[in-house]
């Protein structure tokens, strides 16, 4: 038996490596590649960053919007992410430390223009992030690190769910996604929803419910791992994040 039974298994060769690491891409000399990596990182991290600023630093929504925009545009301009060393910890932690420094520097420079004239704004949907904050429980008992991590997981899963929906639609598999949505996302915790009842709701045999749900879950897992591979810089970091992400509920 192989000694390492952690996520990824020996060598981790079974895990998806179909896309390049966005973290490495964001450090690339190639401008196109750098922008591609940067866009993926912004997509994953902007909501955790915004919520972190709102919930943990007590910033107003306008200040949090400016700081979020400012942080990412500054990161792109100043190549914040180029200095990331995978040997010293996860990219997630590095980004949070960068954000803390950025906020501290902005505080010192209070009163200065928040964004350089001519800086392009990132197309971020702050209204949705604000709406989410209204629906979430206040993070009373979490440390800064825990809160940021929790929001990062939420963002990662939300992106994976969206990707699952898109892929199912493209492959003509809307029904598996709808079943997944009904059973895994929308089900009330107190609702005793059986496969038989679900089969009745959707007008299909319960064996098909079982098969479709199994398919959607497998795809969801694949997408989560792909996404995780994309936003980590090394195999080690990927395996550590996967272990942390998928092992917590045990």
């Amino acid at each position, binding site marked *: *038996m192989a000694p390492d039974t952690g996520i990824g298994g020996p060598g981790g060769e079974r*895990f998806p490596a179909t896309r390049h690491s966005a973290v490495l891409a964001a450090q690339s000399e190639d401008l196109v590649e750098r922008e591609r990596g940067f866009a993926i990182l912004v997509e994953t991290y902007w909501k955790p960053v915004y919520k972190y600023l709102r919930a943990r630093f007590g910033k107003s929504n306008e200040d949090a919007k400016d700081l979020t925009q400012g942080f990412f545009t500054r990161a792109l301009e100043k190549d914040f992410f180029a200095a990331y060393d995978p040997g010293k910890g996860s990219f997630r932690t590095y980004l949070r430390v960068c954000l803390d420094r950025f906020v501290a520097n902005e505080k010192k420079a209070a009163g200065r223009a928040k964004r350089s004239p001519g800086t392009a704004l990132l197309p971020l949907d702050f209204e949705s992030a604000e709406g989410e904050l209204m629906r979430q429980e206040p993070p009373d008992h979490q440390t800064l690190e825990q809160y940021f991590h929790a929001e990062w997981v*939420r963002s990662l899963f*939300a992106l994976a769910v969206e990707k699952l929906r898109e892929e199912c639609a493209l492959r003509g598999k809307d029904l598996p996604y709808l079943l997944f949505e009904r059973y895994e996302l929308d089900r009330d915790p107190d609702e005793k929803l059986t496969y038989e009842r679900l089969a009745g709701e959707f007008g299909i045999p319960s064996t098909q419910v*079982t098969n479709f749900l199994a398919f959607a879950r497998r795809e969801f897992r694949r997408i989560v791992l792909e996404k995780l591979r994309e936003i980590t810089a090394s195999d080690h970091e990927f395996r550590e994040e996967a272990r942390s992400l*998928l092992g*917590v509920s045990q």
Partner: protein
Amino acid sequence: MRWLSDRTVAHLRRVAEWPDLGDTKYRVLEELGSGGMGTVYLAEDRVLGRRVALKVVGPGAASPEIAARTLREARIIARLEHPGIVPVHDAGTLPDGRMFYAMKRVDGRRLDELAPRVSLPERLRLFQRVCETVAFAHAHGVLHRDLKPENVMVGSFGEVLVLDWGVAKLLELPEAGAPRDRGPTTPAATAAGTVMGTLAYMAPEQAEGLADRVGVVSDVYALGAILYFLLTLRPPFEGEAALARARGASAAPPLMVNERAPSTPRPLAAIAARAMAADPASRYASAEELATEVARHLDGEPVSAYRENAREKAARFFARYRTAILLIATYLVMRSLILIFLGR
């Protein structure tokens, strides 16, 4: 993009933990349940076209030690071919590194759920079957060490299955002809000081972590605790009492069966008390002996654990031979009436 609540995120984590079955012949269909050692899934064996239960070590518990224990559990079950033990079909390592084994899928009810719905004689018959299975395991050198009603499944065709051999211990069997050892046996995989099992049903020596003193009679104690549950429909130790045992702060016995369920026949209460004796030497020497004692009670015979008074003896005698006694009494009454009638 949709918002996910904390509950949904936690649930999706579990969904994402689903095992990667890769190129194996299995396909996961749904989660059946999870415990400390791992999760059990309903899976389809694509080669044979049948559904199986797939136990997978959880990623959070994925240490070499637990992986080794899971493989050991599979091997232990595989060597126990008995109708009361779920057969293992396959075992190995998944492509994502986790250990798994596939076993027969069983539809049924757990004993703790079923017990309140069936009569006492029926509960006792189920209990006998559990004892027989455990006796079989002991005879093959295996201690279960986590016997409790939740680990007994009663199948839809009445089959009684003892589940969850995850903390089972292999014994070194005595040489043929050597005297049978009631107590401690050579430990195979458990260090002293390690407590494995469920406190509410656990023998004191096991609860204290005295692994080298855990033996066949420790399982007998747990069987006695199951009998206690079947008589009272409550575990012997609950809440604070169970925790106190874990801390070693209490060695007090549980409330007597008759204090909790006054209508329980005294011989049965005595059987449970003897099986759960604090001193291992005072318990039944084997699961078989315990089962025989229960069978004697069901057959209306005296049991060794309880000394009857004259009235109880008479009552038991009457209950056992009720039909014959009634027939003889009827015959005598009729005969007397006829003689009186003819004598007139």
